[in-house]
């Protein structure tokens, strides 16, 4: 698929009632996004702007250069705030809102997070309704290696473990920081001046491409989030350390600097925990039961009636966060609860770097 076909495809989606979202380079200054961040980010970002996920009005706005968007695609899958029920007196009525959304240009790290949402919210009717009305168009470039702590590369067999409907493999622009001496990431000779080799990962993807009039795609059968027969050694080691070699010093030390702002949990593509609350409206005896993102760094996260907290110190809450991602999720789903995007370190106001913490756990 070449650039003009891609532009036509985006226009086609819009014509067919899809709201198209994708990475957009925006010169909105960081100050406009977060005055707090502007005080902590290197000035280069302030000047040059950010990649954000925005609604694509013109196809030309779509930015596919392999940079990681500042925020992940999480909120399209697990919204920060959603209404589960509307209530009047003691009657609750379920409320589902699932518009047609096409996410174009989802990078591999954010796609990996979708594997987790799909597992966690497997039986959640609100999630499933959203997911049914969503079109995922993945894109091959992995964010630059220094922003990707597990050094994921775009290898040929990665696609069969990622959940997408359509995938655009960019082979004219190899990953910006390839390791010298490593084999080239993927040799997909399409020729004919094509920019993207097109794959489909679902019947939905096939149907939409066919209807649009693009037939030169290859289908990849999704074979689950985990590569069979190849144990993830890094995951095994971290899990073993966390479960069998608990080192309280790591957490005590971090607990002294962490200010429990919860930014890492908000920006993390794999943080999905939530609380359920009732909010009365201004009309008597009516309101909504909502589900809203929570953060295990917040003091009341584990607070029970009567005030007792099981996670009663910053150190314990930090441990809870790491244990979830690197022990509990591996136990539940057999993959790590971290895609390696490094966003948490980028927003941490006190400079806690997940890559360094993992190194420490690994050596504990």
């Amino acid at each position, binding site marked *: 698929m070449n650039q003009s076909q891609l532009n036509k495809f985006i226009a086609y989606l819009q014509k067919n009632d899809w709201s198209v979202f994708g990475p957009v380079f925006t010169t909105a200054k960081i100050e406009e996004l977060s005055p707090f961040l502007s005080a902590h980010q290197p000035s280069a970002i302030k000047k040059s702007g950010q990649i954000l996920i925005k609604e694509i009005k013109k196809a030309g706005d779509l930015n596919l250069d392999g940079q990681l968007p500042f925020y992940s695609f999480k909120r399209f899958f697990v919204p920060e705030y959603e209404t*589960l*029920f509307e*209530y009047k*007196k*003691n*009657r*609750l009525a*379920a409320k589902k809102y699932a518009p047609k959304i096409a996410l174009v240009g989802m990078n591999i790290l954010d796609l990996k997070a979708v594997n987790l949402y799909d597992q*966690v*919210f497997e*039986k*959640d*009717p609100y999630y*499933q*309704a959203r997911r049914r009305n969503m079109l995922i168009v993945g894109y091959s470039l992995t964010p630059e290696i220094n922003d990707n702590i597990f050094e994921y590369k775009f290898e040929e067999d990665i696609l069969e473990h990622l959940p997408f409907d359509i995938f655009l493999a960019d082979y004219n622009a190899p990953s910006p920081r390839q390791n010298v001496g490593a084999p080239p990431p993927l040799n997909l000779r399409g020729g004919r001046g094509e920019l993207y080799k097109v794959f489909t990962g679902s019947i939905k993807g096939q149907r939409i491409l066919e209807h649009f009039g693009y037939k030169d795609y290859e289908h990849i059968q999704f074979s689950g989030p985990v590569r069979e027969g190849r144990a993830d050694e890094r995951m095994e080691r971290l899990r073993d350390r966390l*479960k069998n070699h*608990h080192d*309280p010093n790591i957490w005590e030390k971090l607990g002294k600097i962490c200010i429990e702002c919860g930014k890492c949990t908000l920006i993390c593509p794999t943080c*999905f*925990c*939530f*609380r*359920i*609350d*009732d909010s*009365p409206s201004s009309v008597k*005896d009516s*309101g909504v*039961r909502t589900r809203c993102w*929570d953060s*295990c760094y917040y003091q009341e*996260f*584990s*607070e*029970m*009636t*009567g005030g*007792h907290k*099981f*996670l009663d110190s910053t150190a*314990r809450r930090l*441990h*809870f966060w790491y*244990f*979830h991602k690197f*022990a*509990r999720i591996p*136990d*539940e789903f057999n993959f790590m609860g971290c895609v390696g995007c490094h966003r948490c370190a980028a927003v941490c106001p006190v400079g806690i770097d997940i890559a360094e913490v993992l190194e420490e756990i690994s050596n504990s």
Partner: protein
Amino acid sequence: MHNPYETQPAKITFISRQTANIKLFRFEFVQKVPGHKFIFKPGQFIELSIPGFGEAPFAPCNDLGAGYIELCIRNVGKLTAKLHKMKIGDIVNIRGPYGNGAWPLDKYNFKTQKNLFIAVGGLGLVPLRTLLLGKDKFLGKDSKVQIFYGAKAPEEMLFRHEYSRWKKHNIQIELTVDKECVGWNKCVGLVPILFDKHEVIQNSVAFLCGPPIMYKYVLDKLKKLGFADEDIYLSLERRMHCGIGVCQHCAVGSYYTCKDGPVFSWAQIKDIPGAI
């Protein structure tokens, strides 16, 4: 698609005051689904909500065959304060039951091989009442049960009018109160003190339910008596929102209290820092 957060309206049909701030509520579902009976395993819990006041987990404690749900609830938060103001005929919303970890009644042969020892404090007696009311059915007529129960004061003891009936079913109950008080001539002190005054029933499995502080001391006593970790069961209490192992609030190590518990064997959780 089935909505796990959907609730069934239930009507309050009976209220009895247990203590100054604890009431026993009886509920019946408003729409009875034909052929469907609300069944739970002793140790499981339900989520009760009142729109506008939120949702919270409670352990049902009624006799299983009764056709209604009983919950024994202390007036301590926003939801329970509202509930305590409610009257017979008022409606609440219930979903559940939840918890794959109930009291392990099928794991042991209580009829002929094992006895049951129970150590509970305060409201911890509640999740065991169903088991005690249906003791002959769950454990067999001849099985022996011994309970160590501690409460703040004699008037804080739950279900106290039922003890004499329990005793007729081979259930021995030893009581203690936190502080000396007028009219109380039995044991004074916290639950562990009962171990010094009474011999624990031989060849038994232990079920524990109470405030977290109680567990450590009772576990010490049980370990000294030679109980195996696999034969000690604890019901854990945690903040819960979803009840189905998703929201993360109740996680303990790699377990979820709501989904994998709330009852765990000590062998399962003893190596998890902060479990009790």
